[in-house]
């Protein structure tokens, strides 16, 4: 990295710039959900375990840093469809799976 402060880096519109985290974030957490024949509910729990590690960890971290404005701004998130949906889903699945709620959720 040379001269990071003076020269903004711009990696624009190139597919090669796509990193694995960006791929995983999209492929595992986005995309339309269609119930197949192989049990998706179990699949969901496993994917959510990964999400816990990858995504919720990042949300918690962001909150610590005070970077959580997107959760509270209805204009930016287009109403309530973004915000707590994942958290709610996780909580439901965790309850179902008998996993204790994480301490950080209680605040």
């Amino acid at each position, binding site marked *: 990295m040379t001269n*990071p402060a003076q020269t*903004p880096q711009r990696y624009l519109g190139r597919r090669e710039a796509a990193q694995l985290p960006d791929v995983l974030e999209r492929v595992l957490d986005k*995309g339309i959900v269609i119930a*197949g024949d192989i049990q998706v509910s*179990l699949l969901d729990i496993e994917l959510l375990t990964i999400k816990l590690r990858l995504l919720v960890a990042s949300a918690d971290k962001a909150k610590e840093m005070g970077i959580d404005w997107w959760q509270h701004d209805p204009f930016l998130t287009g109403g309530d469809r973004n915000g707590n949906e994942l958290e709610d889903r996780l909580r439901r699945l965790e309850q179902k799976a008998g996993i204790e709620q994480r301490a950080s959720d209680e605040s």
Partner: protein
Amino acid sequence: MISSGVKAAWYVYGVVPADARLDALTDADGVASTRIQLVTEGAVAAIVCRVGLDDFAEEPLRRNLEDRAWLEQTASAHDRVLSGAVGVTPLVPLRFGTVFRDEAGVREMLVEREAELRDALERLGGHVELGVKVFLVDPARGEEAKPATGRDYLLQKQRARDAASTVQAEALEQVRALHEHLATLADGAHANPPQPPELSGRREPMLLNAAYLVRSDEQPEFIAAAADHGDGRLEILVTGPWPAYNFVQAEEAE
């Protein structure tokens, strides 16, 4: 290859219009070493390939998902196949891991959800998803002289902390403005949680991790507009074009 003794199932990547021409796609490397095919029903077609139940039945799939290398490789393959259709045809990307026991199951799903899928294809046609990540680069780095004494060192640290919190607050305002601006240029906008350094692979904090649904022919303008928000403090990273992963949730389609 799927060996002859192993039962096969059908893995679905996404849905395209029935008349989509995807000749290039059929040679892509998918989640298994089988050919990519289209299963057509009415006005829509599923992008599928055969997978072995030794990897994709419930139990082995659960095991595989705990195997990080398998997951990364297979999830990347899912994206690679779909990416081959971006800009070629309207496309509804499915979430990873949709498996049917037989072709009839795939057809049944297409029949059941045809209206919904057709609407989504119509809405997404002529659009791509672009990702925009914004990093806060440290403008103070390397500016101060080496501290001569321990007291200087502590003062410098204090100054750096004060400066950092001011910078962060200002930067967040800047990022909010950037996101609002880009949202006006797009037909959809979605701000996701920023990735932590362990994920982004960067020391600098990520302030924005957003996706925008952009008209295919307006990509250059959008990318230029995003880049214009970059300065010594904010580094802008645009990724894509992606399949519209962020714009096919059920809530979006309603």
